[in-house]
């Protein structure tokens, strides 16, 4: 699997992501500067990593979403290419119109860094095939603006079409206010596009891929993507 990680000024989790991708695929990822107008040939997966691109100025991801490289990403996605946006990446994809809705300030207004549990809602997608449906995984969050909001109609569609792939839950898989760390609508932690090839999620699976971090639940996401690409190859 050939992956490309986008680097905007202020992005700061590109190395974490590169390490996770290398561990899963065995390949070095290409780092693509925001000013580029095309993606490397043969790219299978584009990743928009976490950070504070452009300082989160104006709105999180607002300026990065309008960078030259995003046109190439839009084309890539339109042709069915896989795009993964994590944290700031999710915010950028929403601002860029590749995903619906918006990420707003955490309900309790403070930045939160802690391990959370996520329920994997479906396993029959490239982004979740490394898990079982209903499986509960533990990954860290680290964000101040992870509160997913969209209008009622959009939320209905997302639920109806099974496009919510990851949901905040308690350790035993129960979804509810008690486990919703940032007030996100419907406890949404990650959603996929209409076509199913673009995923945006707030938590950081890339930080839970090695034993040293005390948990490797994040591996499934990357292993699943690799498996998906291998099958398609």
């Amino acid at each position, binding site marked *: 699997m050939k992956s490309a990680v986008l680097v905007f*000024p*202020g992005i*700061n*989790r590109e*190395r*974490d992501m590169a*390490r*996770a991708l290398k561990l899963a695929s065995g390949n070095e990822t290409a780092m693509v500067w925001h000013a580029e107008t095309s993606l490397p040939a043969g790219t299978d997966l584009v990743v928009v990593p*976490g*950070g*504070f691109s*452009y*300082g*989160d*100025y104006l709105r999180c991801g607002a300026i990065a979403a309008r960078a030259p490289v995003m046109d190439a990403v839009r084309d890539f996605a339109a042709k069915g290419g896989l795009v993964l946006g994590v944290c700031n990446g999710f915010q950028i994809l929403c601002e860029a119109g590749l995903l619906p809705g918006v990420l707003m300030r955490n309900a309790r207004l*403070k*930045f*939160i*860094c*802690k391990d959370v549990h996520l329920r994997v809602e479906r396993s029959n997608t490239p982004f979740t095939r490394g898990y079982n449906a209903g499986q509960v995984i533990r990954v*860290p969050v*680290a964000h*101040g603006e992870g509160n997913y909001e969209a209008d009622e109609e959009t939320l209905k569609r997302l639920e109806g079409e099974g496009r919510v792939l990851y949901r905040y839950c308690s350790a035993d898989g129960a979804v509810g206010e008690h486990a919703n760390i940032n007030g996100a609508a419907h406890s949404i932690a990650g959603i996929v596009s209409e076509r199913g090839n673009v995923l945006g999620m707030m938590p*950081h699976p*890339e*930080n839970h*891929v*090695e034993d*040293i*971090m005390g948990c490797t639940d994040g591996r499934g996401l990357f292993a699943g993507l690799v498996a998906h690409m291998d099958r398609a190859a």
Partner: protein
Amino acid sequence: MHSNEPKITPELVASHGLKPDEYERILKLIGREPTFTELGIFSAMWNEHCSYKSSRIHLRGLPTKAPWVIQGPGENAGVIDIGDGQAVVFKMESHNHPSYIEPYQGATTGVGGILRDVFTMGARPIACLNALSFGAPEHPKTRHLVSGVVAGVGGYGNSFGVPTVGGQVRFHTRYDGNILVNAMAVGLADADKIFYAAASGVNMPIVYLGSKTGRDGIHGASMASAEFDDDSAEKRPTVQVGDPFAEKLLLEACLEIMAADCVIAIQDMGAAGLTCSAVEMGAKGDLGVDLDLDAVPTRETGMSAYEMMLSESQERMLMVLKPEKEKEAEAIFRKWGLDFAVVGYTTPSKRFVVKHGGDVMADLPIKELGDEAPLYDRPHVGQPARAVIAAREVTPPIGIAQALQKLIATPELCSKRWVWEQYDHVILGNTVQRPGGDAAVIRVEEGPKGLALTVDVTPRYCEADPYQGGMQAVAEAWRNITAVGGRPLAITDNLNFGNPERPEIMGQFVGCLKGISEACRALDFPVVSGNVSLYNETNGRGILPTPSIGGVGVLDDFTKSASLAFKAGGEAILLIGETQGWLGQSVYLRDICGREEGAPPPVDLAAEKRNGDVVRGMIHAGTATAAHDISDGGLLVALAEMAMASGIGAQLLAAPASTVPHAFWFGEDQARYVVTVPAAEAGLVLAKMKGAGVPCSRIGTTGGDAIAIVGEDAVSVASLKDGFESWLPAYMAGKA
């Protein structure tokens, strides 16, 4: 010289923080009256914050050398060799006065400043820690300050992209009017690619890098050297505003130009901005500096020479560039969207010359600006020794179980999770041990090495006996690193004290330094960098003497580290080190008995080394399944912490007959650790310890769901955890 500047008057001199005799010194040095710009330059270079005039005579006594020390104090940060061609660059610095006035921005710029000190030497920052001291919880400003400072620390570190992995948070009424924000940064570099500040070569371009210059913080360094009074609220406009995004760009651009071999010397612009950095670069290299302020990028119009020289706008660096690399360096900076301007040249003249609009605004002898700064040997007087509190004379007002329950939920001992969950502590994916343990453990790149990092000090000990307190601060930092399996290498010291013009405060400073020096020597744990913050007083009331010690140690194999959580039931709990039951200056005596009294626990450095080396050995051999050093709250609190972190309780034997129970459980005797070993190995370990002359006894067995001492009421781990985790969030929500 320019005639549009204000005339020098005694009031003007005084408002610049210069005493009459200091002004006389200036007159003697330059043989004439200074210009207004020159007065500004002297006031910046000769204030306490930049010149260390009250402290440097005593700092000279600190041990600063070891075979693994590449660079000791005197540069932007200290550098130590950790083997395999790798070096660790680190320092701690204070941003106290500005944080009191504007907590968010004060904290944020404190973090920004210390990060720059580290990456200006060529090291990529890999971890941050901080030590925060706030006033009493009941004080009306405390919540606001805690909220702002924590948000500010997180706001900068999280955005910049470095994990904040450890620290201390304390509350005490002596910080009511003067909070302390000590920020520490740790970076990784190649040992043979360290960059220093000393300029070299004549006619080399001096280049300004980073954000534009504005009117931020003019007189910030002077503020740090003055006590607060009731007008301090008016000083709000002088606080600098930080931009972590700009700093992230600056980091990447600087590391790129360093890798492209463009840099001869580099220095960040911190306190007293352009003045301090330019003077130091020239002076260290025995060169003069010619600056042309017309070339300085400004974001305000009509800035005067004075303003440009004193501005403390953030996220700026000064560099001496290899002339042939100018185009390449500039291209790298433009790529990252930062300003790059040649603002001067090195000269052979050893003069510091500042031009603006065609006029010479300052012309001063460059070395003397630093070398001739006042050097004070201020009068210092020690305080009479406090009485030793005998354990038997302290009547326990409540039972052991109740005392434990109460202590674990005090501001001193409670969980600080509310604080560190606002810091990204997992970014970079290298945090082996997250906040909440004895020390943070960070993997170095892909391993196998790891770093153990800690910040520690016990201010009430320093107040009671500065010498013992100073020793204890270093000993505890050393213990923290040891307890996770690290080999302590070096420290950075952030010395926070009151008004040095008061002999008793100066006495605290001298006493603490003496203790620090002695501990550093005995433990082979030298000082490689540091910072002094004086005048932390309001209306004559000073802070507790607070010499924060930031310690760095190395683990040859990060997988051979220990954490404090009990790992399984049925394991033997061993107490290493001697316990007499020292209650003087203990949290128990203060928060349970209501007495802030007594001599602090004495430090036996030989015992510290012996006991610690043994514990480290057990951790590396895999014999110790859990390890925790004993500090505030004593043994029972340490055991409770190990239980709460795991959910596994402890069945404990009664206190030895030779000791007073509450003193045994809550005394703060030093040089002690709790270690667990598999039950089958306990006998062997005890025998070994006996043979080596290390005090060691089995005090109980892990297991169950409570802390249960024979003959005492049991306390459930769940209820302890409840008290432990709830105090701070409830307090911040206005409910505690």
